[in-house]
């Protein structure tokens, strides 16, 4: 399998994700330039990561311009052909703007940027991202965003629960999910979701930021390892 990491001009987690995939996990990774109209050299069934950052400055609304970029058109085709995409933070925002994921990410309730280590509870192990992780496991995966409050209408939310599309919820260390463990006001403490086909994934926490014990924590590495394991099946 191959990985692609998209570079928008304002991406700033592209190199971090690339490092974790290539140096920590020894994966086959390629950068994808935002002006490209194709996802080459990736093939059908390969994985694309939309990394964190501020795609085109995001002065208007996070991801609002990125959704119009050539690479996003190529990514839509990639998904239509059965490929996979994971958006992290700004990547999640872009996927929602592009309509590849339900819902939207709006301003945190406190109106401020929040960067901190963050406990999240794994809601389902029945996805490529979490297949190595038991339901209810608590991982420490840092967040860093100002527009990270997940919003989706009730109707859609119900169907997302029914389809097992909720991946992670903000929790405390022991996995309890309450208002006080909700850093940004997301509906139902939701930190990550996927589409109904389980091809498109979005999460606000940054798994690449807790991927090396050398720096302090490697909980997030399990997400990438799960994908590798799942793709190898």
């Amino acid at each position, binding site marked *: 399998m191959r990985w692609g990491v998209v570079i928008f001009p304002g991406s700033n987690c592209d190199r971090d994700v690339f490092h974790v995939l290539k140096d920590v996990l020894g994966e086959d990774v390629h950068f994808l330039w935002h002006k490209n109209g194709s996802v080459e050299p990736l093939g059908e069934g390969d994985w694309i990561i939309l990394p964190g950052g*501020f795609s085109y*400055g995001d002065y208007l609304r996070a991801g609002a311009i990125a959704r119009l970029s050539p690479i996003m058109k190529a990514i839509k085709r990639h998904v239509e052909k059965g490929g996979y995409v994971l958006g992290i933070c700004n990547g999640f925002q872009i996927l929602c703007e592009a309509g590849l994921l339900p819902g939207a990410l709006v301003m945190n309730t406190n109106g401020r940027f929040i*960067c901190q280590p963050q406990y999240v509870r794994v809601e389902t192990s029945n996805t490529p991202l979490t297949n190595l992780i038991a339901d209810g496991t608590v991982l420490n995966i840092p967040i*860093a965003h100002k527009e990270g409050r997940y919003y989706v209408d009730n109707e859609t939310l119900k169907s997302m629960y029914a389809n097992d599309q909720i991946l992670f919820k903000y929790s405390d260390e022991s996995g309890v999910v309450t208002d006080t463990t909700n850093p940004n006001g997301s509906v139902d403490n939701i930190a990550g979701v996927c589409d109904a086909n389980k091809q498109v994934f979005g999460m606000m926490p940054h798994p690449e*930021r807790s991927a*090396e014990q050398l720096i302090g924590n490697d909980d997030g590495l399990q997400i990438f390892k799960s994908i590798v394991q799942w793709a190898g099946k």
Partner: protein
Amino acid sequence: MNTREEVIQAAMGWNLTPEEVDRIIEILGRLPNAVELALFGVMWSEHCCYKNSLHWLKQLPKEGKHVLKGAGEENAGLVDLGDNLACAFKIESHNHPSAIAPYHGAATGVGGIHRDIFTTGARPIAALDSLHFGHPEDRRSRWIMDGVVRGIGDYGNSFGVPTIAGEVYFDDTYRVNPIVNAMSVGVVEKDKIISAVAKEAGWKAFIAGAPTGRDGIKGAAFASVDLDLEEAEENLPAVQIGDPFMEKILLEAILEANEKGLIAAMQDMGAAGLLCSTSEMAARGKKGMVIYLEKVPLRHPSMKPWEILLSESQERMLILAEPEKVDELKKVFDKWDVPLTEIGEVIEEPILQYYFKGEKVAELPSYALAAGEGAPVYRRTWREADYRFEVLKFNPAQVPIPDWDEMLEIAKELVTNPTIASKKPIIRQYDHMVQIGNKNAWEPFDAAIMRVPYSNDKFIAVTTDCNPYYVYADPYIGTQIAVAEACRNIVCSGGEPVGVTNCLNFGNPYDPRVYWQFVRAVQGMRDICRQWELPITGGNVSFYNQSEEGPIMPTPVIGIVGIVHEPEKVVSMPFKQTGDIIVQIGPMIDDIASSQYLIFHHGIRHSPAPVFDIELEKRIQNFIGMLIKKQLIKSVHDISEGGLWIALIESAIYGNKGFEIKLPENGRIDGFLFGEIQSRVVVTIDEDNLNKLMNLAREYKVPAHALGTVTEKQIRINGHDWHDVNFWKELYESALEKYFD
């Protein structure tokens, strides 16, 4: 202007003296025209040419075994990290802009210092900020703090460089004129360092990045007079507006072009914009430059030549390129959609010629504007400040010793003192984790420990430090303490200090008492750095930090970079295990001078700097470095503001542990617990290692006192129960939070 008298009249508008006008006439061999006078006016301002500080700064030691580029040679100093890597770092002030427009002032301060770093070819990997505000109970101070924190966050978060360390002080002397100093640290391969010297005639000159607008015109001049709030509204155009996205693509385009060897030389445009970058690059290379101002892309088409030269619009670079590499260079900038416009070239004759639509608007020798060359250098008169009498009169015997009930109240005051309380409400607004190398994001160390991306074993430790109360009390000793404490923080984090940068924030240098503070501070820094063989690789002077409320406390902020040679051995600050023995390394003295306790509990603002012995300090630092290397200790925390008490309670809070200690009874208990005697560190060790540690302490000739043990939760001092750790954690973490609601 046809006569000397007319020039002198006009020069007053640029704060140039009649003597300076005569110097200009001598350099040019004729009267200047109005444009030339403006150029001299801005470039000979304090902010650009350091005319009142250069004499003293030249005495600072520049050499050191790790130094690659010393102070003044390039835009930022560079030290050798080994393995073909160099580290560029520098700190700068943006005080006056932040005073009147906190958000944009701070944001552009961050942008400006990062440009200083990536103009050397280095990718910035860390930002630090030293902030000094008025008390947050004051509305104006809160407005400034909120804007500054948002400005630093929004710019740095978008730009993609983690803000990993710094300091925040609160004192009413900073109410009108805050201190906002930003430091950037970058890394570059040694053979990819970009020079800022115009070495060859024929090199083409390009302006890259944002278009040039009217923002920031006379910004340097605005920084070179006292801050007057009445006039602040008028000065708003002197504040620049930042665009972190433009800076990000400018950075990426430059690094890619540099990787391909397409940049011959480069300098960022900061104070005095295009004028400063063209004249400094030419002066360094002893070459000249011819610039066609009508080619500069403008935001306002009606801009006059002098406005184009002096604009301080952000996110711009002056790039010099060999003619045969121009096409390739343009391709890279096109790829990143960064405007790149040829505006002139380097010439052999060392003169600067500025043309506008075919007309020569200014011509002057390249050296004419340069600091320490054409620009004047002054030594002003100084006089020891009157308040020193109050300082020397201080008698601790007249300060009542509190009983244990009052001691507990003081302990609460200190934990909730905004200067001491948890800075988490600020830190969490900064992306401090991008580039995935900040170990402090997971565990606190005294300095920030950052992995050089994306190495497995190359780590640096960085910190900024300045306790202005000590400098106020005694500028010479106080500044030495700032250097010593910054080093101590690096050493406690397992690092070897390799380079020093500084940002010297003072009041008006024409006030002899302020100038005395400045001279003594520089001398203190000079002497400790010479003695410890610490090279000073660059810095910044910010005078005129005063308003009608008076000057700020003298605030020489020290930034230090260290190399962490054995990152696998570093020891963090939290207590680790119940039963571990707590040892204070350093003198057991009951001094209360210049402590937060004395100033804020007793309201006594005049006392000497705390006890400081430079020889002992060095031994202590060597000792701590050795303990970490030998892996003898389990936690380590430097004692600073709030004294031993705060060092202990911070280690307890972060470790979720308590402690029980016994302090001597033959002396002031308030001094032992809350005093800020220097050269002290708290460590914890396994009980089994206590004898070994004590023997080593004797060998290294450093005092060491076993104080007690780490407990499960409870805190007990000399038999008095002082609540449990959760009680203190709540106070510590909530004290600043409320000001950000």
